[in-house]
């Protein structure tokens, strides 16, 4: 079973890398604060997939699942706090544009 499982590892990791590329491109190329967070979310999705695949291939499904559950909880909290920060920025500048953000920072 393990030999078969090993063969699916590489195709899966190709897609993990593709998702990662999408996420990092989104974070780098966008000017919107919320979109940057969405980009981070895609990257987290990619590593969730990687963890599950690693657990499946190595036959440690239970451990991988508990890692993923913990990861999801942490992810939710981190995203919530950063959304709180985005709202705080929005209440100051009334915009979600990072370019405005930089101007304001240099003025102040």
């Amino acid at each position: 079973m393990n030999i078969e499982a090993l063969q699916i590892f590489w195709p899966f990791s190709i897609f993990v890398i593709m998702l990662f590329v999408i996420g990092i491109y989104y974070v780098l190329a966008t000017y919107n604060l919320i979109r940057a967070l969405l980009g981070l979310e895609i990257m987290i999705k990619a590593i969730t997939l990687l963890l599950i695949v690693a657990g499946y291939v190595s036959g440690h499904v239970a451990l991988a699942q508990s890692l993923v559950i913990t990861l999801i909880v942490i992810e939710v909290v981190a995203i919530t706090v950063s959304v709180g920060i985005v709202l705080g920025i929005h209440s100051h500048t009334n915009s979600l544009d990072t370019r405005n953000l930089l101007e304001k920072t240099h003025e102040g």
Partner: protein
Amino acid sequence: MSLLIVIPFFSILVFNLPFLKTLRKAIFIWSIFLFLSQIVLSCCSISPSFLTKFAKPLHLFNFNLNLDGLGVIMLFLSATILLFTLIVSHSFIKEEKRRFNFITLLLFTLSALNGLVMVRDIFSLYIFVEITAIISYVLIAFDKDMRAMSAVFKYVILSTVASILMVSSIAIVLLLTGDTNFTVIYEALHMSGVNPLMMLALSLFVCGLFIKAGLVPFHGWLPEVYSYSSASVSILLAGILSKALGVYTLIRVLKNVFGLTSQIGTILLVVGTASILIGAFGALAQKNFKKMLAYSSISQVGYIIVGLASLNPLGFIGAVFHFFNHSIFKSLLFVNSAGLEKEIGTTDMAHLGGLSKRMPITATTSVLGILSAAGIPPLAGFWSKLLIIIALFVSGHYVYGIIAIFASVLTLAYLLSMQRMVFFGKLNEKFISVKEAGFSIVLPAIILGAIIVGVGVLYPLVFKALILLLA
């Protein structure tokens, strides 16, 4: 030992119970008590026999925790710096409700840092790194200052990317070894030898930690975050948080999980030297007290990394010793900047001058901090830098050793020019009525200065204790 995590956490729960509102006034005293008891505990733990005796009855929960010499030093540092942050914040945050919130966050930090220090599992390490990071986001944004908010957003993005790199490394480790426990991974690695996937995992993890520590290719977030966060928070950040997140984790992972190999040594050497130089040159250009301290932080963390990279035991001891010293003198300097911010309202060096007559204690302690940072004997910083440089020469890295000495001179140059601009020279007439900062700022400064002098003068004893702890 699990109690070190659980007690602060449960005290938060108790203080936040809705029907115990009258109890909330006691949180200040209680948290001071907690921090002090942890300091005493870690001082007692220097003798290893105490550690085993003390650890046994406290195994209430089976958390797979462990404490070694490095951990003891970390426990001491985190409790000390949290204590001083608490005392300094007392004069900044006046409103009852906000003060309560701030102290609760500090207790969360204590719990998370203790967990970070004691876990022996690579995923739990990630969990506690992330908890500490989340608390630090809230702490930096605590004042709702616009610049701090935008700085923290940058920090959130970079730090989350770093966490993602760390977790992908953990996934690879899980694939290869089937476990996340330190010892299991270590043994599996030594069984299998060098494996390209393992090198990938190692480099991903180390890359994530470089971001968290603010080392040179990834140092963009650090100066803004340090200088725009409020005075007491920047003590905490510079003193312990970013060091615990980046540098301590790096030392721990390299020592207990992946092992220090010569390849990783080369990477560390290059990154560390680049950090030393770029941090020092960046600091030369700064006009703001706090920003200069932030750049100096990058440079000093570079020394710690270079010490690790020398790959011999002396360098390791030197790195940990410099970690300790750096936490102490950097938090001392940030306490002083908090004093300036409190009394004068600015840390811009162009507006300051001649304050040594008005604020003698602040000026004196900041001289101590500066000389320790620059490595002037007999202060503490001299000995740790000496150890690191000797270790570099012993390992044959002559060029890097000379660069380290050169950068040390640079450190002295920029810090002394800062001292001259802020404290010496002619007193600006605006500041004729400025008084010494209040008791709650002067006291931490005096104690931290005393630690610097004490560790420097009693160096032989300290060195023996360090060898005992880290061997």
